[in-house]
């Protein structure tokens, strides 16, 4: 796979159109199918999927246990299946451990639960810095100050496994319903670059 085809120099817009045009002609794709995928990922599949799983784990101890033990099955149970053959690992943030996900090699992302990856996640700085200096990167780039006595675990996506972080449930949310809880869970908190309730850090300590 060393030689680069000539077309790689062309405008990516034309290359994408040429691919679609030829694949449709060969009966391997249809515009409807492609549009359906795109609108699904723009409209339906997004961090709200992951957020629902998180809220369920916060309110249902059995589900939480299942999610942490067999993320693929527990997420599949909510209908969030994606790229088959790829397992989902879910790691829980606690008062001793802070987890963060990255894909150093190619920016692969847990699409079915978090939707499309944000631009910075795909950028070379994030991919290299988070692995080398996670504590500093979290502090300097994301305003997340993880104290020295909390271990930071960086999960680098592989071909076989995608990861998602189960954030800590913020204080003061005791009476909230599962639905209300899902609303406060953000994409960044499930990547591990945000701690929910950080704006009230003092309350949490």
């Amino acid at each position, binding site marked *: 796979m060393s030689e680069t085809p000539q*077309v790689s120099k062309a405008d990516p817009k034309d290359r994408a159109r040429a*691919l679609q045009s030829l694949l449709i002609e060969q009966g391997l*794709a249809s515009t409807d199918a492609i549009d359906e995928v795109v609108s699904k990922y*723009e409209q339906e599949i*997004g961090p709200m999927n992951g957020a629902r799983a998180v809220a369920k784990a916060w309110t249902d101890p059995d589900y939480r246990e299942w999610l942490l033990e067999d993320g693929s099955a527990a997420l599949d149970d909510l209908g969030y299946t994606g790229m088959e*053959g790829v397992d989902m690992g879910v790691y829980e943030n606690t008062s001793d451990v802070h987890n963060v996900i990255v894909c150093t090699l190619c920016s692969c992302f847990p699409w079915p639960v978090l939707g*499309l990856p944000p631009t*910075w996640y795909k950028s070379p*700085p994030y991919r290299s810095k988070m692995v080398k200096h996670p504590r500093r990167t979290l502090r300097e780039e994301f305003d997340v100050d993880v104290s020295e006595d909390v271990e930071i675990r960086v999960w680098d996506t592989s071909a076989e496994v995608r990861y998602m972080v189960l954030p800590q449930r913020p204080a003061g949310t005791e009476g909230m319903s599962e639905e209300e809880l899902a609303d406060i869970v953000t994409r960044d908190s499930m990547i591990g670059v945000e701690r929910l309730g950080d704006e009230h850090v003092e309350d949490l300590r």
Partner: protein
Amino acid sequence: MTDEVDRTIEEIKDAVGPPQDGDRLVFDAPWQARAFGLVVTLYRQGLFEWNEFQSRLIEQVQVDAFEDQEEDPESVYYRQWIAAFEQLLADKELLDDVALEERTLEFAHGERDASEFVVGEEGGHGHTH
């Protein structure tokens, strides 16, 4: 290290701006959506394993790592995505290199345009399933 790596993540976030709709993201450009949609569509038909695509994407990302990085990161990502997909189709003999090059030039020169993808359009080449 490249300049790109020295850029801060903050700078990239600022350049991109906040998502238009809360925590929801959409594609920046139709060609990026098209690139993503094509790969997922063919994958769903079982024409390849996800890791076959992923391994080629990794190669593209490595090859590209030291190139001029003035290009916006979204565009870089989906350009690499397309290159990986082309390589995969070539390796699987699902697509002819020459035909792809010709077709790309036809779009580049305006002999064809995206109207052929509009459902119901005259002269469309699409098979509807």
